[in-house]
């Protein structure tokens, strides 16, 4: 049993605790520790990515308690990919933050590390209650990060965010309790075996619990009826916090992918493919409404928040199709959209600093920026990637999504293809209009002398450029990345191997037999 798996949990946990207890006075020291730990996450994630690359599952039994009794961490391709994405997003956001955003409150770096701890834990755990605990860890950290720096707008968005997520946590516990009451286990692999062999008498309760769980994950992912908190919360957060939050909606999407392929997936007997009929219309509706929201946005930050929602809608609609091709394309698109929306949040933060009183409002007329060329180029890069125009990664992502949903592809009906093409292309058009309007107002419709502000900070620009620069990189390395996401999609489509890896093939067969016997 390799101990590498637990390193991405222990590193941010202990760094966060050390930052909380020691070095309270010395901001420079805190920055150095936090930066070092976050940088170290990158090679760690890379090691795990290499280990997961061959497709073997790695199961780490905490305290060496065997699978259904103890809590396990499971590393597969999807987990490794999400860990890598978290590390790649966190470092540029932190680079931006150390240039002053972290000085507004004493706890920023500790909270940032604990947030990473919660994120990494949620991506690795193989136990449903443990997933709840990691959700709470990352939420507690995110509540405080959202409030970082105070102000009425932040408290207002914060109240919504906290109350909604607390209700979500209660629902999560109700769902977990119901599942435990029926199946007697919360280990996801064990639960999957139980659900697959559940009789008709248990099925309605299991279905209720599963859909309750879907509500919770949809709240985290910001799916249609549950997304109204997101634009306000993300727009009122500090830029680096908002950039890190770009992965928070993806935690919801990851949980949906994990639970509804493994436990309530295609092989779940009476409860097979439970979530897909819900995800499909809601995903498409989210896409449409978020596109309209993007058109109406008055500030660059709000616009980017709506772009996050558009990506959520696209991803969940593609997931709902359930074909491996669509899933592989969605995973590529997920990488692209997380990094680019994080980069655009940082860019909006930069622009706010430079424009002073004009902030990042999209005004009819405003004085030009002093470094209009620099910010213009960065904005253009991000906008082209986000809209999905060639040659950047958004184009590749959307092309793969659309070609995975071609009419006539196996598993995709003509109506589904028509709906998907129409909404994704329509949404892209609206995004194009919204971003062109934002860009031309920000950079072209200017009047008067340039704003006399300080020079932009090098490190902040570097953080922004690093995230936006992920787009050309994703195009250059499109072949290996898509090979990886395709393998990931295939791995997700065969939950039996996950269960065998966690429980052991013999134990699983014996358990399935006992379940069948008790049923008869």
């Amino acid at each position, binding site marked *: 049993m390799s101990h590498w798996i637990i390193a991405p949990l222990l590193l941010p946990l202990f760094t966060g605790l050390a930052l909380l207890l020691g070095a309270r006075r010395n901001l420079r020291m805190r920055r150095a520790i936090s930066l070092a730990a976050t940088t170290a996450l990158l090679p760690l994630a890379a090691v795990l990515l290499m280990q997961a690359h061959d497709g073997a599952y790695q199961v780490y039994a905490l305290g060496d308690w065997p699978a259904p009794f103890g809590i396990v961490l499971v590393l597969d391709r999807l987990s490794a990919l999400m860990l890598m994405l978290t590390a790649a997003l966190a470092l540029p956001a932190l680079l931006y933050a150390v240039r002053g955003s972290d000085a507004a409150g004493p706890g920023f770096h500790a909270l940032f590390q604990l947030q990473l701890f919660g994120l990494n834990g949620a991506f690795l755990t193989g136990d449903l*209650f443990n997933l709840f605990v990691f959700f709470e860890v990352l939420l*507690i950290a995110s509540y405080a990060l959202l409030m970082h720096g105070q102000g*009425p707008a932040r408290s207002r968005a914060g109240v*919504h965010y*906290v109350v909604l997520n607390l*209700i979500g946590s*209660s629902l999560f516990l109700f769902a977990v309790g119901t599942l435990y009451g029926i199946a007697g286990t919360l280990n996801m692999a064990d639960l999957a075996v139980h659900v697959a062999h559940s009789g008709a008498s248990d099925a309605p309760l299991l279905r209720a619990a599963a859909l309750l769980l879907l509500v919770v994950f949809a709240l985290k992912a910001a799916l249609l009826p549950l997304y109204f908190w997101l634009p306000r919360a993300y727009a009122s957060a500090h830029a680096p916090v908002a950039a890190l939050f770009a992965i928070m909606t993806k935690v919801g999407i990851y949980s949906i992918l994990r639970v509804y392929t493994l436990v309530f997936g295609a092989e779940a007997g009476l409860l097979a493919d439970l979530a897909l009929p819900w995800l499909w219309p809601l995903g498409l509706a989210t896409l449409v409404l978020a596109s309209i929201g993007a058109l109406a946005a008055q500030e660059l930050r709000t616009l980017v928040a709506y772009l996050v929602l558009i990506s959520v809608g696209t991803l969940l609609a593609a997931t709902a199709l359930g074909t491996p091709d669509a899933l592989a394309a969605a995973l590529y698109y997920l990488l692209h959209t997380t990094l680019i929306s994080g980069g655009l949040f940082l860019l909006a933060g930069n622009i706010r600093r430079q424009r002073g009183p004009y902030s990042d409002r999209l005004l009819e007329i405003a004085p030009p920026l002093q470094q209009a060329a620099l910010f213009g180029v960065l904005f253009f890069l991000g906008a082209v990637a986000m809209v999905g125009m060639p040659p950047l990664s958004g184009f590749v992502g959307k092309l793969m999504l659309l070609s995975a949903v071609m009419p006539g592809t196996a598993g995709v009906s003509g109506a589904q293809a028509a709906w998907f093409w129409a909404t994704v292309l329509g949404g892209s058009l609206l995004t194009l209009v919204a971003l062109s309007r934002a860009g031309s107002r920000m950079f072209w419709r200017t009047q008067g002398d340039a704003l006399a502000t300080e020079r932009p900070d090098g490190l902040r620009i570097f953080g922004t450029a690093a995230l936006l620069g992920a787009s050309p990189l994703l195009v250059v390395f499109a072949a290996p990345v898509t090979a990886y996401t395709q393998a990931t999609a295939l791995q997700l489509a065969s939950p039996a191997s996950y269960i065998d890896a966690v429980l052991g093939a013999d134990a699983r067969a014996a358990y399935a037999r006992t379940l069948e016997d008790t049923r008869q």
Partner: protein
Amino acid sequence: MELLFALCIGLLTACGAYLLLRARTFPVVMGLTLLSYAVNLFLFAMGRLATGAPPVIGQAENHTDPLPQALVLTAIVIGFAMTAFVLILALRSRGETGNDHVDGEDVASGPVKEQRP
């Protein structure tokens, strides 16, 4: 006993949901608290209700499932911390926005201007 227990949980949940919809921070906090009580009782009941059965094997003839009790403990700790946090947050929001509506805007009098104490 099961019926009484279920009715209790249902009543707590209903009261919690009602208070949450009041959209003033204090009732909302109370609603969250009631909801978390309901959750804790519910989790506890998922190990099946039994009287006089300790959650330890070998102490008595029957034993009850210890895991839900561990889950409830975790849930209580988390719920308690969250309630404390949301109270502080509500107080701060009251101080900064000048009213106790969860939207930060008083419905009766329209959006509140920045108020300085």
